[in-house]
């Protein structure tokens, strides 16, 4: 006890020194001097990749005086090309955030989950505690009763490596069923290829781009934004379909302010015009696609006039845009977007998007979609895991059936939807109901349970029921402070992670390596996973002693080495981006059952799903309510960067966007504070009103990620409103398992108090003391 306390004091003393703002020895300076700038010192550079969103740009970290000072884009890296988005730039502020989790915490005996009462523990004790309870769950219910949630590049250890070794198929990422699942499933069953983490849109070669939602510019995935801008610079025409005038819309030649939830009707009408006016690429379709006849018959009814009724976009505009895209084809493209879980018909909407692309003959062609290839990289030669990793990913397999090995149970969400990947939100239910079998434990790595997964009240109930909830995170987020054991990971600038292999025009492998030693008593994910694995009796899957050995082995297998990677940062390989490159090698890129692009999906028909997309109306908006839409701000990532002072100074709160006329009719004033209340009676806010001309009258808009309720994140706490808190309802997409979030309706309640929060700059100065 005594020793522990001493060690604790020693650590905190050291850490104060380490994080003091502008930590240079100011006392030693002559009084008339002004503080020296970091770039006048000795600067060391370290190659790594960014973790401020999931795009994984290569970075060059500049270290001076033992501190990370600046992060720049890695010039040789195909993702960043020397440039970074604001979140990538601001990563330093996460590393030196004084609110970070600093040492393992165990919930005080007798306290409830959510009360936030913790005691400090050693890593030994915390890991023993976790392992003991996990083994107990395994003994009583089986390995599948532990669910594994994870997100971020460190998640490989916790949704792939460990769960597969441990034997739980219930591993999931929010980036699948609350993000890309519809577009991946649709792509798999249309093209027989994934879209993948890096959308293979051949932006710069394109001459006509149609964005459906997809608010590039606010969605600042770096490379995509670079390519998008370059395309516009080269003269590409841009059409933006969005009920809100997005940043992208401000760059567009046409903005189609569509009625929310009716995009499929618009897409079907475009298909109709392309076919009826004979504007589609006949040769391409004949050569590469099947099911055109069925499609042609099916599309008879989808006239522009029919779509005008539904979408509120004039039939003439629909026709004109279809003709324009046909004129530019095959250098005309409808990019897939990324966050595609909207209304519940999402896989079908994405199918329509792909069918249109196929009719334009652009898949595998310059200016359309290129064919992304994974780089060559070998797995570490550990003994085979009993299970295949089940989470899937942006690029994970989306196939149908799955075989369950002897002695193991199928995933707990099995049977609810068609796709093979796991739907994270469907794993919450078994925690409550015990159906189809109980889930009693949860290991949650970097997944924001209360901001990323809809129906928070249900999640909280489920957490209360568990035998064990372990959180591995970097910040005391609200959901983290519900865990039984909190394992503080060090940030991405302080650790190695597994190699990432990026499917790209030029496929490449990236290395993450530490730029500085971990602060406080934090540990890298690989270490946590390995220590836990050893305690769980999974030693045989951890033949490597440390991550350097692990990485070096993998790299040696492809003729490189850890040393080389440290010097290079990125290992670039050659790609085969176009159909002609594949044909030259007599290879067929289309992994569908027919080996061709499937305009009509036989597999869907066999599973009782619509083989061709058809329009179904979204849930209607109740009287007196508005449809709640949401999206990104360029300066934040999800709900994870609101404690980053650099970003928070740029954007400290979100606003609720309301059409100005509509707001006036409600008697609202610009910048006043209101509550938002959804149709289930959940109230959220206070949030500032933004009266704007940039949105339709039938919906309101929130930037996702604000409205933090965890008091430990002192900058984030109590600013703005959380969209997720209002999303108590979701519609399950029966094909992909996606949780469609845009089926929530809110009304505006006046008279909320203005939150009494200090300015960020002031808080930052105070926090450092």
């Amino acid at each position, binding site marked *: 006890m005594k020793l522990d306390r001493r060690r604790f004091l020693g650590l905190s003393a050291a850490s104060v020194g380490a994080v003091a703002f502008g930590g240079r020895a100011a006392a030693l300076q002559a009084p008339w001097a002004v503080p020296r700038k970091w770039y006048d010192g000795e600067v060391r550079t370290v190659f790594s990749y960014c973790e401020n969103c999931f795009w994984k740009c290569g970075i060059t970290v500049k270290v001076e005086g033992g501190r990370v000072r*600046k992060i720049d884009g890695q010039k040789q890296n195909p993702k960043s090309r020397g440039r970074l988005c604001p979140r990538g730039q601001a990563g330093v502020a996460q590393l030196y955030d004084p609110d970070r989790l600093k040492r393992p915490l165990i919930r005080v005996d007798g306290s409830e989950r959510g009360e936030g009462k913790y005691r400090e523990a050693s890593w030994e004790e915390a890991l023993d505690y976790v392992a003991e309870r996990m083994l107990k769950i395994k003994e009583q219910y089986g390995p599948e009763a532990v669910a594994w949630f994870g997100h971020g590049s460190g998640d490989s250890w916790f949704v792939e490596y460990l769960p597969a070794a441990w034997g739980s198929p219930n591993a999931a990422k929010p980036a699948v069923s609350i993000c890309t699942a519809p577009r991946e499933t649709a792509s798999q069953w249309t093209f027989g290829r994934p879209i993948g983490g890096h959308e293979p849109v051949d932006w710069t070669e394109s001459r006509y781009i149609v964005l459906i939602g997809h608010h590039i510019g606010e969605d600042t995935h770096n490379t995509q934004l670079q390519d998008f801008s370059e395309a516009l610079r080269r003269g590409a025409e841009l059409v933006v379909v969005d009920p809100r005038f997005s940043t992208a819309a401000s760059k567009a030649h046409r903005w189609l302010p569509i009625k929310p939830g009716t995009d499929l009707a618009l897409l079907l009408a475009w298909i109709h015009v392309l076919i009826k006016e004979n504007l589609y690429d006949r040769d391409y379709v004949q050569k590469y696609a099947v099911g055109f006849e069925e499609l042609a018959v099916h599309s008879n009814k989808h006239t522009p006039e029919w779509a005008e009724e539904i979408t509120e976009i004039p039939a003439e505009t629909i026709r004109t845009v279809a003709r324009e895209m046909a004129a530019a084809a095959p250098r005309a493209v409808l990019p897939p977007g990324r966050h595609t879980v909207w209304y519940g018909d999402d896989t079908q909407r994405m199918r329509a998007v792909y069918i249109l692309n196929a009719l334009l003959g652009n898949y595998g062609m310059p200016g359309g979609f290129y064919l992304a290839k994974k780089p060559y990289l070998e797995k570490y030669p550990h003994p085979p895991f009993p299970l295949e990793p089940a989470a899937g990913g942006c690029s994970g397999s989306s196939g149908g059936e799955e075989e369950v090995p002897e002695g193991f149970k199928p995933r707990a969400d099995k049977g609810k939807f068609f796709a093979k990947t796991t739907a994270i939100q469907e794993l919450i239910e078994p925690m409550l109901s015990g159906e189809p079998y109980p889930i009693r434990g949860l290991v949650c790595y970097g997944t924001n349970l209360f901001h990323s997964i809809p129906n928070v009240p249900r999640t909280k109930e489920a957490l209360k029921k568990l035998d064990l909830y372990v959180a591995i995170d970097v910040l005391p987020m609200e959901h983290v402070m519900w865990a039984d054991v909190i394992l503080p990971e060090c940030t991405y600038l302080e650790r190695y992670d597994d190699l990432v292999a990026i499917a790209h025009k030029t496929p490449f492998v990236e290395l993450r390596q530490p730029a500085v030693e971990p602060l406080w008593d934090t540990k890298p994910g690989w270490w946590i996973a390995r220590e836990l694995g050893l305690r769980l009796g999974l030693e045989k899957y951890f033949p490597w002693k440390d991550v350097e050995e692990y990485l070096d082995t993998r790299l040696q297998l492809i003729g490189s080495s850890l040393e080389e990677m440290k010097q290079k940062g990125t290992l670039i390989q050659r790609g085969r981006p176009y159909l002609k490159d594949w044909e030259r090698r007599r290879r067929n890129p289309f992994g569908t059952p027919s080996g061709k692009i499937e305009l009509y999906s036989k597999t869907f028909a066999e599973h009782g799903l619509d083989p061709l997309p058809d329009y179904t109306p979204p849930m209607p908006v109740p009287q007196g309510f508005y449809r709640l839409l949401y999206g990104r701000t360029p300066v934040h990532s999800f709900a994870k960067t609101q404690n980053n002072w650099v970003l928070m*100074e740029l954007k400290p709160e979100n606003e609720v966007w309301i059409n100005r006329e509509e707001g006036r009719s409600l008697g609202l004033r610009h910048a006043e504070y209101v509550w938002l209340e959804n149709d289930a009676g959940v109230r959220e806010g206070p949030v500032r009103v933004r009266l704007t001309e940039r949105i339709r009258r039938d919906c309101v808009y929130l930037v996702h990620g604000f409205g933090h309720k965890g008091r430990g994140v002192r900058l984030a706490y109590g600013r703005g409103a959380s969209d997720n808190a209002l999303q108590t309802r979701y519609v399950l997409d029966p094909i992909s398992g996606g949780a469609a979030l845009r089926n929530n309706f809110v009304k505006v309640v006046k008279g909320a108090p203005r939150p009494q929060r200090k300015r960020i700059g002031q808080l930052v100065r105070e926090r450092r003391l």
Partner: protein
Amino acid sequence: MARYAMLIDLAACVGCAACAAACVLENEAPPGHNRLWIRQRELGAFPDVTVEYRPEQCLHCEHPPCVPVCPTGASHQTEDGLVLVRAERCIACAACIAACPYDARFMNPAGYVDKCTFCEHRVARGEDPACVETCPTGCRVFGDLDDPESPLHAWLTEAKRVDVLRPEMGTAPKLLYLNTPSKRGLANHESEVES
């Protein structure tokens, strides 16, 4: 001797503020102050609406009103046309802050006036300023107006018009804007302000 200038193509700028974040870290701007910020203006009315994103920072005026008012010579103009502050000489009187028509200066709590330097320390090494280097849309270009080889020239010769902030101030700014939406006739009145 050079005549450094920066150009921002507002047709491409998406107001992502990567430049602003890069500047904070490169130049250690203190919490609560920015050398660079992004202004967003909403123009027009639904559905004929647009939005203008306009990054702003010190314009390195050719005739900088912030220089003559300085009583110590701390605020000065270099041979290359950069307007800089010698921090050791600054008495923090704020006369230059008052003189700047563009709110480009602020008082650094360390006791001197601070502002955009066009990243002279990087320019001296032959690099682009931090904001230019990171800008994902590539809408920022830095260069020497007197050097025909400079990338600025290609952009300027192709430009239909070049705008500067508050030209009536007679400051001859060297922060130049291309394709200003409010000046392109895309929409010419600002959406009503209510606050």
